[in-house]
């Protein structure tokens, strides 16, 4: 059974999640990928205000396809997360508590997750039309010039994801592959 959780995340929610848990996320999340991460980090370093509040925030690594007339958003599956690894620890230090993407993270990110109490979820890469159905509202709130890479505020309802890395060092990718590997 999937756990229903609400974003932004409270410390209690993060503590309750374990690698392997299926979740349905409702609430407000933000999109951001390569260039947006660079700009957010540059702003933090320059002491500027960010376009959204990082406290408990969840960032979804996605660059959606354009919405057709009548659609809230186009197809919106996750992009590969490791490209954000250089930026994630600083964002966690400043309050980020959830990341949604696909693929493996590097040890610096995993360490920061333990240190600050954050969680990494995977959404199904390539299930982009299906995922789009759980996004009820979408609004560009920063970096409009970046097109698909702009930061959007999303209202989601039962957005399906799975916990890959929890704040205790659990790693579903490691555990899952070890279980099915054959020599």
């Amino acid at each position, binding site marked *: 059974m999937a756990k229903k959780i609400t974003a932004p995340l409270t410390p209690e929610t993060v503590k309750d999640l374990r690698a392997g848990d299926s979740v349905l996320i409702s609430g407000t999340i933000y999109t951001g990928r390569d*260039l947006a991460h660079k700009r957010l980090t540059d702003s933090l370093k320059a002491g500027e205000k960010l376009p959204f509040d990082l406290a408990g925030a969840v960032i979804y690594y*996605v*660059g*959606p*396809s*354009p*919405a*057709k007339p009548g*659609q809230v958003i*186009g*197809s*919106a*599956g996750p*992009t*590969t997360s*490791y490209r954000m690894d250089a930026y994630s620890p600083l964002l966690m230090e400043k309050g980020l508590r959830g990341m949604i993407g*696909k*693929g*493996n993270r590097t040890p610096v990110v995993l360490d920061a997750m333990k240190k600050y109490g954050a969680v990494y979820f*995977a959404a*199904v*890469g*390539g*299930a*982009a*039309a*299906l995922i*789009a*159905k759980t996004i009820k509202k979408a609004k560009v709130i920063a970096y409009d010039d*970046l*097109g*698909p890479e702009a930061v959007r505020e999303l209202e989601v309802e039962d957005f*399906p994801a*799975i916990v890959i890395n929890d704040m205790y060092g659990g790693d*579903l*990718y490691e*555990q*899952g*592959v*070890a*279980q*099915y*590997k*054959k*020599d």
Partner: protein
Amino acid sequence: MKEIQFDAIRDAVAKLCIDANCLLGDDVVQAFEDGLKIEESPAGKDILNQLLENEQIARKEMMPICQDTGWAVVWVKLGSGVRVQGGELYDAIQQGVARGYTDGYLRKSIVKDPLRRVNTKDNTPAIIYTDIGPGDGLEIIVQPKGGGSENMSEVKMLSAADGAEGIKRFVVDRVARSKANPCPPVIVGVGIGGTFEKCAMLAKHSLLREIGSVHPDPFYADMEKELLERVNKLGIGPQGLGGRVTALAVFVEAFPCHIATMPCAVNINCHAARHKSVTL
């Protein structure tokens, strides 16, 4: 001489871009269904079911299967008896890609320069490979290629002494190191022989094959079978969560080779294995 109109080529390419991105091939859908029969992991099964559902939504609503609608890689087979009327062939293709990605609400993922990274806003330029031969036909294949799986690809210059086992080890290892990143289940394209760049093109071209098709050369048919078995023993599974179905197929394309070399390229394709063709 057969005359083909510029506009007809442009419009055909635009339609191919949209259809390729929204309508997954029957062979891929079949491969998901076959995968469901052998997948042991509950999470893996769940994902294959979601991919089937995703394909249905995309088809019904004509929206992209994946938000990364890729580089437009275009393969052209041009008969020497064809003359394009009203403009240049390459212009027609580029304009067709721009139109397809714009009118089809496909994502524009191409930046003008690799370091200065400003979006071209219409997904051009397309990457065009042309083969000129006899006849008066014009065949065009559009193969949108996503970035996540492209990033897990590699060329290696092996030597003849490494033999078939050296090639196999490189291929299996490349998939193992890719883990969850290229959205498994994947399709593994392998190019062997030719020059450094030729083998990469062979690998990309092999991804156009239908899943379930058998290599015409029994030697490579056996190699593909063995590689698929070895890859599927890695345990990566759908989306890397652990499972049996890491790859849906392995395709090998070989080419004559220099006596001093044995290049091998692995081009990984995700389950969003998209390509559509037309003959004008």
